[in-house]
């Protein structure tokens, strides 16, 4: 068996590796190179060294976008995971209509980001119109608008992962805890949560990276208005690339820095939650 796997490894892995190289590794390396260049089109570049990286520091919008994104990530990771977990708990109790609710909660996830952004823009603006305001009244409105949107979209997906995790908790463990006189809270804290830690790792990783690199929803919901105060990093990079002649490289440099930050945070998070996982 081992030998067969080794022998057929190239056949099965090659297509994926080829696609991954073409679609990810090559553009990624090109992107790093481009961040040191000045260019209009990516085939016609001029090497300029660290100029683009120096330019970033003269751009206050980037730092603002970073803070905004960080804050957004913290809030959305917490809310999405807490709500998703609560709903998952409710929907594993065997109440009537469980399957129907699971489907309903999962459905928002099937709609694309841009569409969602516009739908929520209409909905929220419809409510705010009663007060003579819109979502782009200030950055705070945009912030909470994005939180609502992301919660609505992602809770269902995370819920499914949590449901799978909760259903895998052995019944004997809970039963044993109950016989020992544990309250519901104690069962949750000392048995269920440690046992679903792998799901928590996955869900927090997914929500963290999704929130950090959020683009479509941001573009459709507020487009960074007013005055870039609801602009997240991905949108900031995009705008840098397209709205100033000669700043394509600076946008690329921002993207490289952004990648390093996201990778570092995601790895730290992964390590942290991994260490809390228990073996069954």
């Amino acid at each position: 068996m081992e030998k067969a796997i080794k022998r057929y490894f190239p056949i099965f892995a090659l297509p994926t590796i080829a696609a991954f190289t073409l679609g990810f590794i090559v553009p990624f390396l090109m992107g790093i190179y481009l961040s040191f260049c000045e260019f209009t089109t990516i085939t016609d570049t001029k090497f300029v060294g660290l100029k683009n990286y120096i330019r970033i520091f003269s751009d206050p919008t980037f730092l603002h976008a970073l803070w905004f994104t960080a804050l957004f990530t913290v809030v959305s990771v917490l809310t999405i995971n807490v709500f998703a977990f609560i709903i998952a708990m409710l929907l594993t109790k065997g109440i009537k209509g469980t399957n129907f609710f699971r489907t309903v909660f999962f459905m928002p996830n099937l709609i694309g980001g841009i569409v969602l952004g516009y739908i929520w823009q209409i909905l929220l603006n419809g409510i705010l119109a009663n007060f003579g305001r819109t979502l782009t009244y200030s950055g705070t409105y945009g912030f909470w608008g994005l939180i609502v949107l992301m919660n609505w979209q992602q809770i269902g997906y995370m819920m499914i992962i949590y449901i799978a995790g909760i259903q895998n908790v052995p019944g004997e463990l809970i039963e044993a805890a109950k016989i020992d006189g544990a309250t519901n809270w104690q069962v949750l804290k000392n048995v269920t949560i440690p046992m679903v830690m792998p799901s928590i790792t996955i869900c927090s990783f997914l929500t963290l990276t999704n929130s950090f690199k959020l683009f479509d929803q941001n573009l459709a919901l507020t487009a960074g208005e007013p005055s870039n105060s609801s602009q997240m990093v991905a949108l900031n990079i995009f705008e840098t690339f397209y709205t100033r002649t000669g700043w394509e490289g600076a946008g690329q440099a921002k993207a490289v820095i952004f990648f390093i930050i996201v990778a570092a945070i995601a790895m730290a998070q992964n390590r942290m939650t991994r260490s809390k996982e228990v073996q069954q």
Partner: protein
Amino acid sequence: MKRKVLSVMLATAMTATLFAGCGGDDKTQEGGSTTPAPAGTEDGADAGADAGAADAGSQTASGGSVYYLNFKPEQNDAWQELAATYTEQTGVEVTVITAADGTYEQTLKSEIVKEEAPTLFQVNGPVGLASWKDYCMDLSGSEIFSHLTNEGYALKNDAGEVSGIAYVVETYGIIYNKKILNDYCTMDNAVIASVDEINNFETLKAVADDIQARLDEINDAFGYELKGAFTSAGMDGSSDWRFKTHLANLPIYYEYQEKGISTTDAIEGTYLDKYKQMWDLYITDATCEPGLLSSKTGDEAESEFGMEEAVFYQNGTWEYGNLTNEDNGYLVTAEDMSMMPIYIGVEGEENQGLCSGSENYWCVNSKASAEDQQATLDFLNWVITSDEGRDSMANVMGFTTPFDTFADGYVADNVFIQADAAYTAAGKTPVAWCFTTMPSENWKNGVGSALLEYAQGTGDWAAVESAFVEGWATEYAAVNN
């Protein structure tokens, strides 16, 4: 053994689907030039060669093909039709792709590095040319250049070569509903007795204020459903350019005039108080609350004017087609519409005309093959000299062109263009399009955001001034260092 064969087959099937995904869309383009996606040049070249062989007399069947990346979505259908006609007559493949509204730069950036790059694209003026100068072929020897009525319509690079040629001259101002205004003039205590009396900011503001205050009275008397004097000054991306670019042109124009310059690295903002009073007028005497402006789109403003819910609407000649398109079901008719200059309150503005200029320059890709370049030039020449081309440009697209070939009877049937001609004939000075010298898109966005925040009450006018003046210097330095 059987299993091995099976697994190899499976793997092959997987790989095949993978690559099928990449190359699959070519087949869907056999419709030829009218499909809205780039046809492969090979197909194009083949078709051209075949047709050329069949029609040996054709002079243009040199094997080249044309790929035009069109900027104006509203003229997409007309270009597709024109391209098809040309292909039918000469056998030369012409592909027209239109970039979605507001995404031209992005589309061009990605299209031009492709193997089948656009042979014909456009830039919006000196600032646009700065990023595309390496891709613009020198057109000074071309026939279309020789047909220009005025060399000023050619866009020249630093070396003095002709990099772009304007193909449409456009005009904007305040579009107004003549019928409603005339009805208003007949009312008791109307501020004016005739529309012609509006020739400065004070009168315009007095009229707008009065209409806004007496909306119900006007509606009752004449059966309109007016909601405001001006249409909503929407700050959604589909509409904000009317203010951050077009309206902002006026203070810049007057400052340039005063200093006798045509571009600058630092604007002073001497006329910003005029800009403010105009913006105040737009957001106060309007169909909607200022707090709702950020979500108002260009289409909404258009339909407000079209449905006779507003009297004044700042926009340009290009709106004529939409406003008169029967499919839109608008109440306003061509005879009811006209255009007046944007009076912002500058001294002597009684002699100001409409804002005329061009931000649409044709450029031929200097990196395309010689055959494709020639094919492109031939195509352009055909567009501005043949009956079909001239008819399409003047009557279907509704363009006023800067070419002498249109003089004999190909004048666009457009009331706004006629209004412009009338103002020019009356000796009014047209306002030049200085907004092509705005340092970057980022500058416009900064001004637009500040305008919006001022309108909805979350920011003050000082922020607009700062975005306008300091933003100009910052952006100019950022782009030019």
